[in-house]
């Protein structure tokens, strides 16, 4: 192929991508983990690193795992919605602090406010891999039976909270 055509070809591909980007909404992607048991973990807590939290500690209750990081801009966008969810006091909200510096994470929570019952430190992202985390942020709903009921990729918006996550929570809690 003619070498001087290369910039044009790359640009056309990029423009296609951008055009596609305009059509998109944060989407719900079916996860292969839905209705499977939540992967086991045992990680130190951010506010008290000497203590560990494991998935078995949460057995018997409905809970939410929200994957976040201080370097994640979209997390800042969804923070307000996550805080609104926490204020409802319906379920235990656990943060998975993903590939982050604990000091940065602590400062981030101080600055914006801490909506989580506790955050656990997944510094090297191992637990993230077990849970099939694509990127940050992601949100999982786990039932009292320890099964993953729902997974949301990308920042949770007020709409997706009210229309999707809340109905699932209500059903699980009733």
């Amino acid at each position, binding site marked *: 192929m*003619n070498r001087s055509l290369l910039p044009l070809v790359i640009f*056309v591909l990029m423009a296609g*991508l951008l055009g596609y980007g305009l059509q998109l909404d944060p989407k719900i*992607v079916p996860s292969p983990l839905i209705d499977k048991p939540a992967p086991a973990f045992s990680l130190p807590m951010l506010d008290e690193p000497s203590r560990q939290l494991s998935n078995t500690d949460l057995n018997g209750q409905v809970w939410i795992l929200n994957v976040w990081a201080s370097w994640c*801009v979209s997390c800042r966008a969804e923070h307000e919605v996550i805080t609104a969810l926490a204020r409802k006091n319906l379920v235990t909200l656990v943060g998975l602090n993903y590939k982050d510096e604990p000091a940065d994470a602590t400062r981030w929570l101080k*600055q914006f406010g801490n909506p989580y019952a506790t955050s656990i430190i997944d510094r090297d992202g191992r637990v993230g891999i077990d849970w099939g985390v694509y990127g940050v942020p992601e949100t999982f709903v786990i039932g009292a039976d320890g099964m993953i009921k729902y997974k949301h990729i990308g920042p949770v918006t007020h709409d997706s909270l009210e229309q999707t996550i809340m109905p699932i929570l209500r059903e699980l809690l009733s």
Partner: protein
Amino acid sequence: MIPEIGHFALIIALSIAFVQAAVPLAGAGLGVQRWIALAVPAALAQLLFIGISYACLTWVFINHDFSVLYAVKNSNSELPLIYRISGVWGAHEGSLLLWALVLALWTGAVAVFTPNVPRVMRARVLAILGLVSCGFLLFIIITSNPFERLFPAAAQGSDLNPLLQDIGLAIHPPMLYLGYVGFSVAFAFSIAALISGQVDSAWARWSRPWTNIAWLFLTLGIALGSWWAYYELGWGGWWFWDPVENASFMPWIVGTALMHSLAITEKRGTFKAWTALLAIFAFSLSLLGTFLVRSGVLTSVHAFASDPQRGIFILGFLVVVVGGSLALYAWRAPMLKSAAKTNLLSRDGVMLLNNIFLVVACSAILLGTLYPIAIDAMGGKISVGPPYFNLMFLSLTAPLGVLIGIGMLIRWKSDSLQRLGSKLKIPAIVVLVLALLLSFALPEWIWTAYLGIAMALWIAVTVGIAVYERFHGRVLSNALRSTPAGFYGMLLGHLGIAVFIVGVTLTSLYNQEKDLRMAPGDTYEVAGYVFTFHGVRDYDIDNYVATRGGFSVSSESGDFKVDLFPEKRIYRVQTMPMTEAAIDAGLTRDLFIALGEPLDQQGAWAVRIYYKPFIRWVWLGAIIMALGGLFSASDKRYRRLARSSSVERSAAEQAA
């Protein structure tokens, strides 16, 4: 009435832009002198009408005309005058109008200040600028009319976003736009040269001063934005790798590459196609930046206004401008022949390497910025964080620092490894040893700090050698007279990089940040300074209420004392809390205090205290770099050639 005049002037400007784009281009192609001659008056008339339109919008803001929707959304009768003037570009519609005005200003400047450029070439350049202007004016008139009326008129406006009520941010967008849009001139020259097939040294010489000036404005604009983020956002950072910051940084990197590549093309007649391509890239990235900021494709702390409908328009425009240019390039580039071969061991070769590193660095940033969209297209949504950017960028810029030093001392065309080795061996050893000594003087030895210091020293030392070589053994007055301003421009530009590297390295590795709970009377020690909190008091100012904390700071030895007053502001109309940090700035360190939240009834507050060593050097470096750009652009050569070629031209015209 005034808003209608503004709107109407905008429509007239659009009509003129169409004429300015179509007629001279056809005239240049067909050889019709009268059509060619239309380019300059059309450019000036377009500037006049966009100027009128802009003045009308400013009038609306200054006189609180709340029958105009845009003013209602972004102004308020309590807003101080300066922010009513800067409020014009505080949101989407007005900032686009500013974009169009800046483009018209550059176009007008090209029309007036290029007597040395042949008339046909100038006509083509102005026509292409007119074409770009058409796109932007259409965009404003169709999707983002700032003059839209509101019936019935509102009694009061909902105020300018408090984040923007700040002097740093008031001048940040115009600076940035002067840079962004300024690359349109290099772009237009490049397209005009590709159309005519005249991609040569003369073309590079015409483009160079314009590119330098655009680059210096962009440098200052980015530095201002970073400075603003530092003192206004209240978390003490100065760069966040936010998509919008990246959008301004990418054209800067490619613009830097373009300046160097233009120098080679002018001097040696090589890399013509590459230089033309870089000029297209620099401007395309400016347009892409506008697209990213204005379309809402990316989630960003900066996304003040976004709307997918507008995104589709800008994307279409981007496809026409960039796609069209690259198609033209694909057609013409194979016909361009270099005047000479390039030897890698020469100044041309080193500058080519520098170009490659810069372009790769820019691609890495582009990838990191667009990757989230790519993932989104495949069904996810994520944020690529600073860990990625920092790693990518550091590993790509470290070799650049070494190249800067070599590039200043190596000869054009070809050089010998032996000569270069004997010249650089001793300075290199001196730099490595000196950097080691200096790095041990730091509070803690960190290898990246050593690397940063060595790099900065290396650049400084090679700048010194370059000066020595130029002046050594010559009568000073002669040497001064014969040294072109471009030489000083190069030295300053590179010294600026050295200063910048020192700032980035030391502030990111040795800063101290403390989040504290402080009650009145509490003291705390950070980095040898004792901070005492005296409590808070409330104040009532123009359009906000402030809670002001009193702190006194003294060094442990007691020879330094200062009082600092950080504020927490609530802007009345938008009831948005803002953090106004108090900073004691210094050449070697900043002390930074920000108030968090009140913690209890006894007057305890969450307080953030930062110690930021050498942070001023980050912006100082940028200012020195911009000065370098100014020196380079003011080189006598460009004016001298202007005179001689205009003499040649008039002689040629008389002969004809």
